């Protein structure tokens, strides 16, 4: 580390992840650090929020810190992010709908940020609730290795499981599950525990367990836990990387063409589509979308140039 730090002209990038939070954010931090590692002028360090206080202040000084989900980082301690005051530049990294209270609460913490980096499929800059904090959008494109995997994928349909719904329990999702069972059919996978962080020991599905589930699933379906228009890009990537067809159901907005992947107004409209078009066609449509925006490395390079 000392030798690397001495390298003249190299940017030091700290990707800080929440070790006690939802596993999803660890995955997000990991993806960012992989994308950053492709930058030749940057040394990247993936670091747990809980380990920051053990870091030398001089090492943090001059660094650019990307803090993935500050609220969940604070699960390791209310002042755990304090050492980052010494950093040259701090950005909060999120992958949320910016209109939710959950997003707003990210900025109630102990430190301020010079930017917020929103990872997803849609630029939400126009509805970003904190105009004083510059907004940066990072398209959630696949990593190069993921692009190769997606391009080479040859899924066969139908798969053993017609549908899979993996989400925290809400009243709307209970009704959603009942519709999936009665309309799409009983050959489904339903994992809908009470809301809590996805962590080892919590009785939740690990990322690899989700992957193995989606490897056997035709339609990976979900709906948001809020009413704001938003597309969950990570669910899309999870589906496509397993050869499953991503199916967002949103009763308020639907999208059949345009900048976003296809969404459905209802389970019935999804079922009608599934009846009319071969699953292979539907997957190809999503594969094209996944591969049409370059790689996360490229998108990250563009982003970090401005920071």
């Amino acid at each position: 580390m000392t030798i690397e730090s001495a390298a003249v002209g190299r940017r030091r990038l700290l990707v800080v992840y929440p070790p006690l939070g939802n596993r999803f954010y660890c995955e997000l931090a990991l993806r960012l650090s992989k994308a950053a590692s492709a930058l030749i002028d940057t040394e990247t360090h993936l670091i747990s929020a809980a380990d920051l206080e053990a870091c030398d202040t001089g090492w943090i000084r001059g660094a650019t810190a990307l803090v993935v989900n500050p609220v969940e980082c604070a699960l390791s301690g209310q002042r755990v992010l304090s050492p980052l005051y010494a950093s040259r530049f701090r950005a909060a990294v999120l992958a949320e709908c910016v209109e939710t209270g959950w997003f707003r609460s990210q900025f109630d913490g102990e430190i301020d940020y010079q930017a917020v980096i929103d990872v997803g499929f849609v630029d939400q800059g126009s509805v970003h609730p904190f105009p004083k904090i510059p907004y940066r959008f990072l398209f959630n494109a696949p990593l190069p290795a993921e692009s190769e995997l997606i391009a080479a994928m040859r899924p066969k349909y139908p798969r053993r499981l017609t549908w899979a719904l993996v989400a925290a329990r809400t009243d709307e999702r209970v009704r959603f599950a009942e519709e999936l069972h009665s309309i799409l059919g009983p050959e489904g996978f339903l994992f809908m525990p009470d809301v809590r962080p996805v962590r080892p020991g919590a009785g939740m599905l690990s990322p690899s367990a989700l992957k193995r589930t989606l490897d056997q699933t035709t339609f990976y379906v979900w709906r948001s836990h809020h009413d704001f228009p938003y597309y969950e890009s990570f669910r899309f990537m999870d589906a496509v990387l397993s050869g499953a067809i991503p199916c967002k159901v949103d009763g308020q907005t639907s999208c059949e063409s345009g900048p976003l992947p296809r969404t459905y107004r209802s389970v019935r409209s999804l079922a009608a589509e599934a009846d009319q078009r071969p699953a292979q066609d539907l997957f190809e449509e999503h594969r094209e979308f996944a591969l049409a925006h370059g790689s996360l490395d490229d998108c990250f390079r563009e982003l970090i140039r401005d920071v």
Partner: protein
Amino acid sequence: MSRTEAVPAMANGQARWEHTPSSGSGKAPRSELHHTPLGLTIMIPNWNHRGFLPRSISSARASIASMRDMGYPGEVLVIDDASRDGSGRLLRSLDGFYGWDDVSVLLLKENIGLAAVRNLGLELTRFSHVLFLDADNEVFPSGVATLFRAALETGAAYCYGNLLDIQQGKAVGIRSNEAPTLRLTVENYIDALAMVDAKQALALGGYADDPRFGFCEDWEFAMHLVAEESEIAFVPTVVGNYHVLPLSMISESVGPESERFSAQMRRVYAQSGTREWDPERVGRVYHPDIGFLDEGWLPDEP
């Protein structure tokens, strides 16, 4: 349908059962040793749920038909616990009208309580597994088949899956929707609708017929399995519908009586309220089309 009427007899303070094995359909005789073939009994304990019996029996029969299509034998066993609402007469009428060969009925002349009825089902089954279906609920053939495959492939003593709460025709909740963890010492989130390996269950003493546990006999049984390190498996599929009724257990399980039973459970199994924080796994998550799903966590470092 074959029908037996039985009277419980008490010997040395323990309930014993006098029953005549039904003679219908040329099936294997019930065996006390439980060297039983792989197959399924869907056992419906009934007490004053006459109005719902046609629905539960119908769903159970459809599930057994699905089991037979898979190549496994099965039966429906209804044990009426001395109902006073005419359930017995209804069951006799169904017997006479339909003459089902896949349904057996045992009409008890004296009420013995739910735990004892469940144990009777475990003793009377002709097959390796028993699915307990409360008389006011219903199961789906696909869900039952998935549960059965999971039971066979894991060897688990106790398998359960998601139940949708239905009220006035609408889905209003979900239960049995969590993997088994030691949070079970705090509250029971697993419904009684579960598939039980009869031999393993009987070897562990079956359901506790103990008034101190009240209507928590299924919770006590699950915790007993945990304590005995028997395998419990959550199967993430939709197994059936739990119909929320004004007089169903869900309504009874609030208030001081419920709290007393819960306190008793915690006293026995939670050990001063410490174990619920123990991260130790007490069961598995398994789907027969995928495999075990509770493995594969990477180390904490991403």
